[in-house]
């Protein structure tokens, strides 16, 4: 992130150490992940130790310290979705997009993540693609939804 942008984010939160979480969220919003340089910069600007910022950034699974894909695909693996075949969806996406263990394809096109419940169990299996919710997913339906992304 260029330093001007980071300064804007820091100023928006009055450089309050208490706003650390919000600042990290804003950075991730911009960059899709938390670049190491920015994390270091934030620690310095707020006079918080790097160890504390790192602890916070790794505590929440919504933060990523690795670059994430252009598209983010979240599969709900909560109990209801799980029994209705969510693992099959995950397998399918992994195969189709060649997603490695880290969850992000080599070309940084897609990041595959799983969450434990999004609170819409009646609509399961659920898939969230770039913040859009797709309900009652099947592998066949999945191909249709993911087609534009594959061509991207």
């Amino acid at each position, binding site marked *: 992130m260029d330093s001007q942008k980071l300064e804007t984010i820091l100023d928006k939160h009055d450089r309050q150490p208490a706003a650390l979480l919000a600042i990290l969220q804003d950075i991730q919003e911009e960059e899709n992940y938390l670049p*190491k340089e920015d994390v270091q910069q934030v620690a310095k600007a707020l006079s918080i*130790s*790097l*160890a*504390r*910022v*790192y*602890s916070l950034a*790794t*505590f929440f699974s919504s933060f990523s*310290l690795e670059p994430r894909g252009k598209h983010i695909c979240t599969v709900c693996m909560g109990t209801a979705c799980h029994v209705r075949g969510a693992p099959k969806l995950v397998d399918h996406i992994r195969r189709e997009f060649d997603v490695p263990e880290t969850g992000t394809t080599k070309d940084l096109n897609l990041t595959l993540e799983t969450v434990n419940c999004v609170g819409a169990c009646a609509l399961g299996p659920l898939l969230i693609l770039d913040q859009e919710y797709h309900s009652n997913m099947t592998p066949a339906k999945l191909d249709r939804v993911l087609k534009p992304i594959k061509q991207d």
Partner: protein
Amino acid sequence: MAVQDEQKVSFQIEGRSYQGIREESLLGALRRYGYEVPSLCYHEAVSPYGACRLCLVEVQKGKRRKLTTSCNYPVLEGIEVFLDTEKVVSTRKMVLQLLLAQAPEARSVRELAEEYGVTDTPFKKDEGNACISCGLCARVCKEIVGADAIGFAGRGLGKRMVSPYDETNQACIGCAACVVVCPTDCIGLKEENGIRSIERWHRDLPMKNCKVCERPFAPTFQLNHFADQIGVEKSHFDTCPNCR
């Protein structure tokens, strides 16, 4: 330090009456009065954290009686404390089983477990690990040393004590207070060829040779940090504590 009367509270341990300081650590008070309570993550010099769960006691407050860690329980007026009750001992054994699984390499855990007749654990062992993730090293680094160079990463089963990004952190002054205070000796310190290495934090620092005995005694980085902190010339630390 003189304790003002209004800060004093009376409470009971095993039916005996004692005076304590309001809101001090119950474990600290128990030990001051000579009671033996096991613990790994407590150190009187830093804030209590309640991580190892070994300092369990039962506390009766009014009508309620509950099991609690004593290190982070405040001494309050009128509480009654019970040690080594059946409930305390059986729970502590369970805690030891969990600690054995978490850190099978930790000698202090194995020894303590043996005292309680716990020789094996039904839980899945984290083979090769000796760290119980109690965070005492980080508390000392932050509260005593003031460096705050290490901290927890992740959470749940994946929680690990690391230096940020698991790489060298310039904030680490190499004082090795973490090594000294670690209850399971899992950090490790090496001093070879005038270099102090704390492998776990990826920190290698050249040491200063004493002007008198010519032996290396502490990392130059640490000594300069101390000199800056207390505002003396860097040459103040030219000689080792033995020759000073």
